[in-house]
């Protein structure tokens, strides 16, 4: 009961901080979904290509890193937003 009344007694600033903390968590979680799927798909396909044609492995690897860099940028922007909201 005491904990409940403590929850109700949040002042305006505390409420704001709590909202910021939870929305920062949601922002990062949502930002990680797309890039997670994307990188998984990308690396999976690259491994498939390297296994089929080992002599092209060097070229596939370079392109894979480029693709990972572009995909990962979205997740990282989410991370920066997470820090900006959280502070």
């Amino acid at each position, binding site marked *: 009961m005491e904990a409940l009344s403590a929850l109700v007694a949040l002042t305006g600033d505390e409420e704001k901080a709590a909202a910021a903390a939870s929305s920062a968590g949601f922002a990062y979680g949502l930002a990680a979904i797309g890039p997670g799927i994307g990188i998984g798909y990308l690396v999976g396909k690259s491994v498939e290509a390297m296994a089929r044609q080992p002599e092209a492995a060097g070229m596939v690897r*370079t392109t894979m890193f480029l693709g990972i860099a572009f995909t990962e*940028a979205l997740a*990282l922007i989410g991370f920066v937003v997470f820090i900006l909201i959280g502070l």
Partner: protein
Amino acid sequence: MIALEFPPINEILRWKDLFPSFNKIALIAVAAALIGTVIFLLAGSKDPMKAPKGVRNLAETIVEFIENGIVMQTMGRDGLGWTPFLMSIFMFIYLCNVPGIIPFLQMPATARIAIPMFLSLLVWVVFIGTGFKHQGIGYLKSSLFPPGVPKALYILVTPIEFISTFLVRPFSLTVRLFANMLAGHILLVTFALLSEALFQAKGNPGLIPVGVLPLFMLIFLTGFEVLVAFLQAYIFTILTAVYIGGAAHPEH
């Protein structure tokens, strides 16, 4: 209960100012620039006719890696003149990243946005300058009006191309390097704090052995950061090479 207080972000990214406006980040950046310069000056002063060893061996390995791993893969033979520029960028970023895992330094200089931002602005100026040098004013035409698109679609394509080439490229270069190093640094701080708090848990001695778990995670993540430091320097350099190569030779 254990007392786990996460320090404010300004505390984990800042050290004591050595003297006004010169802190640990600036020290690491200056040291990185000096170490890179000294390695290559020493290597350059060795007799090139003898079999390479020591510092020259190291320098030749790095040059070979940049030439075969980055320039030849992205720009081809014409791009070999860019090797010194790309190698300077690679060495500087790598030497700024690596202090993140060196004991007592424990801070990647690229985890503050100033250094990545300056580097990507430099790359931005260089690749746009290369475009204008190689294609003249036609660079704007080939980058904003890509060939092989129906005329009516240019209303849609041109703004997208403008934003993605001239605005998003420097931004994403900056954020990629900065956020990767910052995330790694915060992860290391988190696990170090967690195992410290568990080892010092008062009133509940059962928690002390549990502190070994975050300690193992910390060791594993430190090994992972070795990889990330190299990979981020590599990705920044290879993207620079791709941008410069794209500006020098338009696709037809």
